């Protein structure tokens, strides 16, 4: 695509623990364009949160982003930035919304203060001016009586309101990219919808790109234009959202979609993907999903599949791209047999 906003190339983030080297993110490559909403999907343990933290270089010991990773943003490689330059990017050009609003907010400062802090740091705004901005932002994210609310503490607000505060904090400087890490998972279903609407609305207003991290395909269907599926620290499928739902290629994606409850479904039980993610200290040599896959064969056990282009703009890391006939012979996944 022409001049993406963010271009991640071969991102590898490893954690050096007593139990071994955990290759949490193991060679991830993708782009995000201006104004796009991209969904990053996968189970817990697949590396999506670590990817997000890596973009902002918030990885600390014992983890580190391996040399050779490139993250081009607005023409600069984030890996090459000094600490102070990187700080100027955080909260300013790229902002992050975290999963747990209660713990993400500092309990001893007012919400107004925490939002104003962003303006004070990046705009060098005076206390008064920053506070005004904070109140404006609170209003923008739909919080009633913003002047009063600004003087309150996180524990005095409901979960949904706290998440709005977190979003307000992220948008103060009108960043080019917002990374939202499971922004609705900790919330009530009804509030979820509100927050997602808010995000969509704000995105349209400011033309922000959003990288939405989630494990919920339903959320993806609602909000994203493109989807990246991660498994085992890698990208296993990437496509525009309608293609993913109409023509999922990777068996893992199939599994994720199958696990979604659908209206008019007359199954008694939701389909789950048997087995669990292998430990990142010990990725299998072949295809990382092979154990849990219904179509696996000896090639997938032995060889590690590269990304194949299934159709324009649709990538899949699966040998089924070369041997589609294997789909006709599904079996019990190896992991279920043992």
């Amino acid at each position, binding site marked *: 695509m022409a001049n993406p906003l963010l271009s991640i190339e071969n991102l590898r983030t490893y954690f050096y623990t007593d139990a071994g080297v955990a290759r949490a993110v193991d060679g991830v490559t993708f782009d995000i364009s201006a104004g796009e909403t991209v969904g990053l999907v996968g189970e817990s343990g697949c590396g999506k949160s670590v990817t997000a933290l890596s973009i*902002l270089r*918030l990885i600390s010991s014992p983890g580190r982003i391996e040399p050779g990773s490139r993250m081009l943003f607005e023409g600069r490689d984030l890996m090459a930035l000094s600490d*102070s330059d990187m*700080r*100027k*990017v*955080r*909260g*300013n050009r790229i*902002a*992050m919304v*975290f999963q*747990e609003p209660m*713990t*993400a*907010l*500092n*309990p*001893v*400062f*007012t919400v107004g203060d925490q939002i104003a*802090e*962003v303006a004070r*740091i*990046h705009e060098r705004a005076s206390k008064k001016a920053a506070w005004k901005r904070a109140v404006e932002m609170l209003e923008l994210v739909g919080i009633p009586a913003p002047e009063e609310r600004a003087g*309150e*503490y996180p*524990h*005095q607000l409901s979960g949904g309101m706290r998440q709005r505060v*977190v979003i307000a*904090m992220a948008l103060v400087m009108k960043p080019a990219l917002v990374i939202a890490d499971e922004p609705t998972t900790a919330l009530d279903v009804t509030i979820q919808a509100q927050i997602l609407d808010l995000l969509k609305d704000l995105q349209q207003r400011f033309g922000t790109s959003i990288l939405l991290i989630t494990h919920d395909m339903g959320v993806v269907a609602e909000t994203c234009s493109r989807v990246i599926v991660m498994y085992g620290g890698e990208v296993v499928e990437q496509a525009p959202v309608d293609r993913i739902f109409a023509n999922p290629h990777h068996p893992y994606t199939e599994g994720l979609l199958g696990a979604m409850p659908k209206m008019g479904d007359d199954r008694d039980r939701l389909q789950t993907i048997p087995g669990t993610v292998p430990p990142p200290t010990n990725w299998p040599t072949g295809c990382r999903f092979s154990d849990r896959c219904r179509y696996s064969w000896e090639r997938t056990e032995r060889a590690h599949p590269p990304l194949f282009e299934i159709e324009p703009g649709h990538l899949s890391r699966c040998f089924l791209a070369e041997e589609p006939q294997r789909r006709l012979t599904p079996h019990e996944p190896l992991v279920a047999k043992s």
Partner: protein
Amino acid sequence: MRRLVAVRLLHAVVVLLVVATVAFLLIKLAPGDPFSYESTSLTAEVRAQLRAQAGYDRPLLEQYGRFLGNAVRGDLGYSQLLRVPVTKAIASRLPNTLLLMSLALSLSFAFGMLLGVFGVRHRDARAGRVTDRATLFVYSLPDFWLALMLLLLFAYWVPVLPAGGMVDPVMHPYMGPAEALWDRLKHLILPLTTLTLLLTAYIVRYQRAALLEALPADYVRTARAKGVSEGAVIGRHAFRNALLPMITLAGLAFPLLLGGAVFVEKVFSWPGMGMLVLTAISVRDYPLIMAAVMVAAAMVTLGNLLADIAYAWADPRIRTR
């Protein structure tokens, strides 16, 4: 919040009651009594008379009631050692101890918290490790040992400071105001330094622990994601949360200081409560010793009460209920 204060006050009263009871029981359980010391003027009859006067032949419960009643009214007995009512004896010495303690407390907290933040900010660098080691070393020094070393160092080997007391015993009454102040300061330096060094080390360790405890929190990660500098992350975000356990520590510092004061006062001949108690030991001045214990407990309780209230105020989660 008001409810909380009331509850804590009630709690404090209960604590004081228990302490008084313990003191009373100790006196009763100890061998002998205040009237069993040797003296030519004390015949058996006089002793018996004194005992009766003090109510020692009455049933235990009545004695207890009398004891408490007296205590509440401020009558803590008579000191044989100093020949004055105990309350008066303590009142004359307590301010000196309080002076040392309050100065030590303020200085220690100021230095201790700053040094603690510094140590955490630079914990991966040499400066941080040096701070940590030095703190551990000072923390391990016995109070009487440090007091003695400082005394020897600065009063004998390099005699720049006085060897003890609060003021110059001979010259002070004749000094002009500025000179008198300087005299007081000179005498204050060594005992104050001893207490401050030890308490600072204690505080630095706690501050460091409190900060390190706060650092892995999610809100710290949020702050970093907002672009907050590492200095502000530690010095503002983590610190403000770490302040809460530090307030609790202030409450815990009282017993530490009082204990330390005993030995430090002895080494520097500082005329405070600790010195008083030690002198009282040799003559078994029971009322004085027990009263000192109760006063100390009262101070500690008061300190804790204030700390609790300060904590409740400082933690928005409790303050805004």
